[in-house]
């Protein structure tokens, strides 16, 4: 019984972390699906989301709004602004490089990532800052508190809702259909009158907004942020995206959850010393053995 309980504790803990990974991984996978670019600056987008929410929440906190209202407004602001950041970054750092050799946008992305970190250091601070405790208390979780805390519950519910909304959007909306078409065959999509630039911008905005939600959730859960949180989270999320099959939207969700669970069980049943080694080990192994991931489709390279 105790063993079973422990298993579920680890399971839900892993699910919570995994859903954050999944939210960030979606940004990688969406962008990769459309323009085959590994957006290295995506981890920084997640960090910017947390920072924007922190600033907005701070301002609203001074004016004394109730904490649930602060959380929602701060999260919305983070989503809007970070979407705008994603849009701008694409216009500056990637758009001029369409058609350039594949190395160029990748290097440009690494440069952008360094730039954004230092932008936050200069504009805000290089120290850790506190993120206000805004998550509401949920009395009905008292009984299962050891298995699933309030933050875990909120993170799981929010991210599940977000992912369902995204799936519906991609499946049924006009823009979503255009995105899928562009991902499948860009030339064909262009011929059918789809504005590729618009679709690419849309992709960056949506991907960034998802990362921002992830950023706000984890910051509200842990109560702290700094400029460097994007690196590790970005790397792990990227691993998740590769694990699920980069370019595949359900793949990123599954990959995120699987990675979160793997990490949780490694620490729980083996040792915390090897948590990160495991993630990167998975990354290497998956790429070597099955580069198209769990749900990805093998691509044939055409000349």
């Amino acid at each position, binding site marked *: 019984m105790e063993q079973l309980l*422990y298993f579920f504790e680890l399971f839900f803990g892993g699910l919570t972390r995994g859903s954050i990974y999944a939210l960030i991984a979606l940004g990688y996978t969406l962008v990769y699906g459309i323009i085959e670019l590994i957006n290295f600056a995506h981890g920084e987008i997640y960090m910017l989301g947390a920072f924007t929410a922190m600033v907005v929440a701070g301002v609203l906190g001074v004016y004394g709004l109730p904490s649930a209202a602060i959380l929602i407004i701060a999260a919305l602001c983070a989503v809007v602004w970070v979407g705008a950041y994603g849009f701008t970054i694409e216009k500056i750092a990637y758009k001029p490089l369409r058609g350039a050799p594949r190395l160029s946008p990748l290097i440009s992305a690494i440069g952008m990532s360094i730039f954004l970190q230092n932008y936050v250091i200069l504009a805000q601070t290089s120290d850790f800052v506190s993120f206000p405790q805004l998550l509401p208390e949920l009395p009905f979780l008292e009984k299962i508190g050891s298995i699933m805390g309030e933050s875990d519950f909120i993170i799981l519910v929010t991210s599940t809702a977000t992912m369902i909304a995204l799936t519906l959007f991609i499946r049924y909306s006009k823009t979503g259909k255009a995105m899928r078409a562009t991902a499948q065959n860009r030339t064909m999509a262009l011929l059918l009158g789809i504005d590729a630039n618009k679709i690419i911008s849309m992709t960056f905005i949506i991907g960034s907004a998802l990362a921002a939600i992830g950023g706000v959730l984890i910051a509200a859960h842990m109560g702290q942020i700094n400029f460097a949180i994007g690196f590790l989270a970005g790397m792990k999320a990227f691993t998740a995206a590769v694990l699920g099959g980069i370019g595949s939207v359900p793949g990123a969700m599954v990959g995120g959850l699987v990675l979160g669970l793997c990490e949780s069980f490694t620490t729980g049943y083996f040792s915390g*010393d090897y948590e990160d080694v495991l993630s990167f080990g998975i990354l290497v192994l998956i790429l070597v053995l099955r580069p198209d991931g769990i749900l990805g489709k093998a691509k044939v390279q055409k000349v």
Partner: protein
Amino acid sequence: MHKLLHVLAACAVLALSSAPALAADTIKIGVAGAHSGDLASYGIPPLRAAQIIADEYNAKGGLLGKQLEIIAQDDQCKPELANNAATKLISDGAVIVMGHICSGATIAAIPAYANSKIISVSPSATTPALTKGGKNPYFFRTIANDDDQARLAAEFITKKLGKTKVAYIHDNGDYGKGYAEAVRREIGNKAAVVLFEAINPDAPDFSAVVKKVRKEKADVLVFGGYHPAASKLVTNMRKNHMDIPLVGPDGLKDEQLIKMAGKYAEGLYASQPQDTSDLPSHKAAHANHVKKFGNDPGIFYYNAYAATLAIVNAIEKAGSLDSQKIIDALHNDFVETPVGKIRFNSLGEPVGVGLSMYQVQNGKFVELKDSTMMLN
């Protein structure tokens, strides 16, 4: 290629044949530490402390009839620069050195001082390796080392809290892992080790390890690391309805921790040097800084003030600049400093410096007066 080697060899011979020579008519005290770069905020307050004391003595007519001169060398807290800084100080004629600041830099620098029989007194390097086994007779410090903190923590956990199952978590850093290992060693068989594990301080959350600590039924958690990770850890624990105490080193004692963890920080323990702000010499040191620089002193100022006072006092007592006599004076003579009335033991560790356990109570770190330890 053959010719090139000749040229290289010739240049090498030329380069190897230059040596410095200098004479002294003042007493030169070297001050080494991070005076620029990321960690300048650690190195500048000690430099100021040395200057204040030198000015004070010079106004009174100097030491042994000579003026004191402070010569500063910047090591940016980098081991590879510290050795250079040490060599530079020696060649510039420093008779004694107050520094270095960071542990890594100090480890890199002390062989050079030992070679030239020059004494160094660090205000802030806390790694136990520096004094272990008494292998560095020319090294002294005015701050408690990490093992002392571990001893206090061990005492506190076994005697005061009366806990028997300890879980250790560290951040895989030199400081954090060293502390966790030292506490485990100090506790010995007085309590069981139920868990000893590393976490990555940058991980988004620590939920899995926290659950493991609960499964192992630990009744106290020792964390070796710094305040950002500690804040996340304690938040994770309390949110999972786990209320065993968390004990850590001075890396945790930062007001920022209370801001970040909020109500979850309540009850957390962290050790730090005893609060000596009531001592007259502490007040004097503070007043001197305010008078000269117009603001409150930064970190390590008081330890550096104590180190410089100990140096000057020892030279005065020795009556000469002979290293052995100065070392004897440092070992035997107590001196009133802002961190207490101190001398140094045979290993070079301070005697008379106090360590206390602090606890977060109502959003503030409060010194637990009954859990202090005097170094001897």
